[in-house]
């Protein structure tokens, strides 16, 4: 029998070879068998090679579901072991033997000669193979698994890709993809997955990709995405460029809309009423710190927006800075350089062109109706996906949810910015008061005319408040003391006159005494100036209620002026009194001299 197989294998080999070649046969291979075998052989062995690869053959054999020892037997019998490789002859014989074994025949060469059904191979990767065999269900399932796993792995990749992207958007939960309706549909087509689920996922991924692609365009610091997204990115970027040329205003996150601009201008006004002036660095720092962004980012925003690097923000610079803060709060990465649309020159030019703003609103209204359609389209597809509302609401809409042109996103974000701003407005209002302008320097010397006018006012006699008296006296004595060398400090004196009142009280007393000593011999005249001064006070009093109504600044200035004037009036009064006294003294002297003359004996004889 050993010869048998050897002998049998020889002619069988030749026959098989012949069968492989032409179909004429010692080995009865039916046509189907022939087809099948050649197919299998070509599968296991790529055409240029003469012998089947051992591993693929092994796989095939294993797929036949025969026990391993049977397979070993088969290999022996078919002669592969002897020959060392699976030539076509051996392969065909092996297949025949497998068929025989599966039919229950013993693994012998003789069995080949019988009419045998086709060998059954489960677990073949081609559908055709599966069809050829008579797959048992469980086998079929088992071996469809690789195929399914392949598909699933591709889905998994998609899932992971999608999942990566949803992770990054949490930082921008309200952010809306900018895809226009047309690109959205194109995305759906370009992916062309059979299953709705995967298609949905792809669609979800696509808007994110679109957004992130704009990210990448605007901010090179955005994250990386799978290679899968790259081809879509290119197509999307192309589409978006076409879009951009048509509707420039709706896509660019760095473009300030009219509403935003008004909002920024109002905020500017709250910090600095004059729109042409600057906001100083410290004021701006306090303001932007309220936005709760980390300091390094605020520092970077300042760097970007303060173009002239002067430590202060003009209105366009402030708008740019505010816009960047808002963008950052909405999750956008800060750009490395200031985008064109945020440059001060650009913003200033924009301020001068209100006509364009109408175009803004038109462009908003246009995408709206088309976005409605895609909204329904997406809603139909999306099944309870969290991303749905964001997608649906934001088709064709602007990046920023702040402009009220679109929907709940806008309202969602607006209260955010408003809450930020509401607290800030109050604080800003408190801090936004301009520092009081220093009071105008009072003139060192009042003209006599003005003091004379005041003298008329001071004619009235009343009881006075001694403290006011003191206050009026102190500036006067302060002026007396260091006379000429304190012009700039007078402003300070006047503003902090009260302080100096306290401080100067002790010196005032000797000063008063000094005044008194000056007019020592003229007690009554001394009293009269004081009385007159005190009488001046009630005249001042009617001024006081008027001044209380005005701001503190004016009051301070006016009190200072008043005190100076009073002091001057006092001095003038004193002067006039003394002059009068002098005249009287003169008269007396003249009288005395005449008397003397009369009394003197007339010596002239």
């Amino acid at each position, binding site marked *: 029998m050993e010869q048998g197989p050897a002998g049998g294998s020889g002619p069988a080999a030749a026959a098989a070879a012949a069968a492989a070649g032409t179909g004429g046969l010692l080995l009865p291979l039916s046509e189907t068998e022939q087809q099948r075998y050649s197919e299998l052989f070509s599968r296991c062995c790529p055409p240029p090679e003469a012998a089947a690869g051992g591993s693929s053959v092994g796989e095939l054999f294993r797929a036949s579901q025969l026990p391993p020892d049977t397979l070993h037997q088969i290999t022996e019998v078919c002669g592969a072991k002897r020959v060392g490789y699976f030539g076509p002859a051996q392969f065909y014989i092996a297949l025949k033997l497998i068929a025989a074994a599966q039919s229950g025949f013993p693994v012998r060469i003789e069995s080949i000669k019988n009419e045998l059904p086709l060998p059954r191979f489960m677990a073949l990767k081609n559908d055709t193979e599966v069809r050829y065999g008579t797959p048992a269900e469980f086998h079929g399932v088992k071996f469809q698994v690789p195929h399914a796993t392949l598909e699933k792995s591709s889905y998994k990749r998609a899932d992971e890709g999608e999942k990566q992207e949803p992770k990054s958007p949490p930082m921008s939960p309200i952010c809306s993809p900018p895809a226009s309706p047309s690109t959205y549909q194109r995305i759906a087509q370009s992916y062309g997955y059979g299953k709705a689920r995967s298609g949905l996922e792809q669609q979800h991924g696509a808007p994110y990709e679109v957004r992130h692609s704009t990210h990448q365009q605007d901010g090179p610091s955005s994250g990386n995405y799978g290679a899968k997204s790259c081809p879509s990115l290119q197509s999307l970027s192309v589409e978006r460029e076409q879009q951009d040329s048509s509707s420039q205003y709706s896509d660019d996150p760095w473009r300030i809309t009219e509403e935003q601009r008004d909002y920024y201008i109002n905020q500017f006004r709250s910090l600095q009423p004059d729109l042409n002036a600057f906001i100083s660095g410290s004021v701006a*720092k306090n303001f932007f710190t309220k936005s709760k962004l980390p300091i390094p980012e605020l520092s970077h925003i300042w760097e970007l927006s303060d173009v002239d*690097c002067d430590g202060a923000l003009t209105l366009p610079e402030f708008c740019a800075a505010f816009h960047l803060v808002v963008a950052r709060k909405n999750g956008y990465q800060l750009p490395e350089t200031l985008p064109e649309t945020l440059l001060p020159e650009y913003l200033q030019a924009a301020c001068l062109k209100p006509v364009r703003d109408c175009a803004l609103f038109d462009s908003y209204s246009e995408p709206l109706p088309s976005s409605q359609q895609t909204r329904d389209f997406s809603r139909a597809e999306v099944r309870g996906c969290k991303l749905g509302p964001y997608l649906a609401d934001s088709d064709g809409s602007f990046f920023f949810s702040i402009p009220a042109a679109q929907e709940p996103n806008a309202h969602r974000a607006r209260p955010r910015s408003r809450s930020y701003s509401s607290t800030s407005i109050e604080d800003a209002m408190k801090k936004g008061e301009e520092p009081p302008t220093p009071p105008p320097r009072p003139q060192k010397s009042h003209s006599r005319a003005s003091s004379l006018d005041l003298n008329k006012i001071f004619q009235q006699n009343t009881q006075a408040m001694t403290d006011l008296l003191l206050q009026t006296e102190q500036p006067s004595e302060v002026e007396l003391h260091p006379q000429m060398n304190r012009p700039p400090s007078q402003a300070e004196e006047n503003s902090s006159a009260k302080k100096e009142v306290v401080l100067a009280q002790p010196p005032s007393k000797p000063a008063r005494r000094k005044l008194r000593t000056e007019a020592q011999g003229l007690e009554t005249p001394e009293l009269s100036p004081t009385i007159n001064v005190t009488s001046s006070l009630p005249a001042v009093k009617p001024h006081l209620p008027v001044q209380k109504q005005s701001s503190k600044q004016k009051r301070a200035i006016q009190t200072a002026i008043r005190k100076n004037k009073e002091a001057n009036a006092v001095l003038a009064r004193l002067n006039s009194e003394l002059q009068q006294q002098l005249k009287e003294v003169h008269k007396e002297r003249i009288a005395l001299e005449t008397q003397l003359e009369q009394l003197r004996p007339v010596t002239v004889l």
Partner: protein
Amino acid sequence: MAVCIAVIAKENYPLYIRSVPTENELKFHYTVHTSLDVVDEKISAMGKALVDQRELYLGLLYPTEDYKVYGYVTNSKVKFVMVVDSSNTALRDNEIRSMFRKLHNSYTDIMCNPFYNPGDRIHSRAFDTMVNSMMMQVC
């Protein structure tokens, strides 16, 4: 151009130091640190002479075989130290001066930023860009 650029604060701690990456950076840190002594020496010498322009270019602090170190101090005693490769002989004094001037300008720009507290480390991207432009382009 420069191999290492450092900004040292008044209290002699570094606000910013950047070297060409391929070299052993620690060596440059050490060089800058030791050059501070020379800077202080020059400042004190200048102070006695009542130099009109205090914020001046200090010139070559000391040369070694591999490189040269230049210094610059501002009015607020902030020092800029630059290490330049000796093999680069084409660099003239004027160029070094202009580089220091650019550094100083960028530094003042940083100061203008209200979010920058003097004495903090410098993290400004504009400053980084400017410094990168001055660093040697190592292939």
